[in-house]
């Protein structure tokens, strides 16, 4: 389940008004999410949650659900 908070971060970086994110959504399915935007999204997520990703963690991300799970491990929802 993708949180509204993560969704807002992604939409903000991509300048999208809305998008129906599912756990299985991949970057290629989202308008504007290319490799350089991917870097920008990761940076924005790090700032939003005050966390730092390691290289291997972000290389292995396959979809938005995995990004959400990674965030939840590093910054457990309260």
């Amino acid at each position, binding site marked *: 389940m993708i949180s509204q908070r993560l969704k807002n971060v992604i939409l903000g970086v991509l*300048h999208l008004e809305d998008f129906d994110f599912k756990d299985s959504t991949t970057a290629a399915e989202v308008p504007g999410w290319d*490799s350089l935007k*991917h870097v920008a999204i990761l940076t924005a997520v790090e700032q939003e949650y005050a966390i730092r990703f390691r290289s291997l963690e972000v290389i292995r991300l396959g979809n938005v659900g995995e990004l959400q799970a990674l965030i939840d491990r590093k910054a457990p929802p309260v």
Partner: protein
Amino acid sequence: MSEPELLWERWLRLAEENPDAPAIVHWVAGEEPFRWRRGALMSAAAGYAVHLLERGVKRGDVCAIIIRHHREVYPIYLAVSLIGALPAVLAYPNPRLHPLKFRDGLIGMSRRSGLDWLLAERALEPIVRPLLETGESTIRDLLFPLEWTGGSGTLPHQPAGRQRSSDPCLLQHSSGTTGLQKPVTLSHAAVLEHVRRYGQSIALSESDRVVSWLPLYHDMGLIAALHLPLAAGIPTVQLDPFEWIVAPVILLDAIHRERGTLCWLPNFAYNLLAERSPEEELEEIRLDSMRLFVNCSEPVRAESHERFLARFERYGVRAESLSACYAMAETTFAATQTAPGSAARVLDVSRDELSRGRFRLAEEGEAVRRCVSSGAPIGGCEVEVVDEQRRPVAGTHVGELRIRSVSMFDGYRNYPEKTAEILEGAWYYSGDYGFLHGGECYVIGRKKDVIIVAGKNIYPEDVEDAVSRVAGIMPGRVVAFGVDDEALGTEQIAIVGETERAGEDELSTLRRHVIEAAMQLDITISRVYLVPPRWLIKSSSGKPSRSANRARALDELSVSDGVHFG
């Protein structure tokens, strides 16, 4: 007198001399690297070669290879060469690229380059198979070598028949937007001679190790980071470009662990590495082993070298390791290279004088353009500056660079009209604009992109640099070009810049800042087009294409999208 050695004869000889020597380190982040030894690599290549022969691939056939970062891609590539066919590495389609667009690109490329076979991953079959059924392309069949098993590893004697060193051994595509790529074939002699000469210019030795994230469809990745080490008998460490862009620090990790000494990078990579390498992942990294970081394939910027050095000096990067090179697919690769052991020279040049087509060091108080040397011509290569009539000009003139090289290509494949435009006698007319100083070459722009405003030459790179620095404009996501002004009988400068800002007030302020930034360089921008991210069309090299974006802007954007001044 014996026949000159062929490329694959060199590989076989090196493998025979020392089969256990490391050849290719296939790097996947977080995994133990796969290490190809020379003997095993050539044995695997021979196995694939037998498979290719069995499927009807013949000497002289062009085999396009579209396979992602995979440890088998190297022996597959070598196998094509072993049987006398021509390997041509093509980019794997981005998932967001529409299948029809990809197919159209392949049709265009196949007709121009004469692609005979497509060696691909099974995942591409649904997209590419229809091409074969409609007969729209020259491609005869699709092959899936990653699924082949049981190759004998032994080739019949002289599998390709006797080849000559002047025969083509590979096909690569010079940079250009989709459909406009020009196919360049290179001979065994050109590649081997280039490896020898370029190797001398960088003082290549047996102790060198190349580390690269560059894709193999790019000439810098293919020639500098694969062919050079293979033919020189030194190891090369190959990273996945897609992993690198997400986590640039893996390049530094690979350099550290493999004790890399040579690395070729386009200019933007210096900035990305400096900005996106987390401190905590650098803790154990040492980069002292590096002899040369070679900046090549886009304009070299002094600021990028300075940022890179400031960030990584404490990890062992030395100023003298920051070198530069001027290269193109048509001359196999390098035409010039800065001397190893000293940093690429930077000259503060009078911007005013440059705009008049001359070079002079800037005096105090003058507007300055910082020009980075790409070094002196490598052995077997000459570089001259010529005027509009292609006559050599001496001294301080700025003009088109022409190159004569022992490693010159033989012309664009199936493209005589394009060849005739740029090859005259033994000289290749690069279309690049620059000057020579102290025996070294300074490339400052593309001749065809120069904007001439009332007789004054404006280099679009200058405008783009200035606009890129304006807060609100996405760095590097700007193109500048000339627009004909019939009433004035000259060109005016227009820019298209990507911005994340929205709202008329914000955009209006941003447009004003853009114009003010250029005014500081005594440049007047007449039209400012602000567009959303991802609007700009990129060439295959990843840089925004001026010509394509000029056409799109003039076609799609009305004057109301821009600000028209005076």
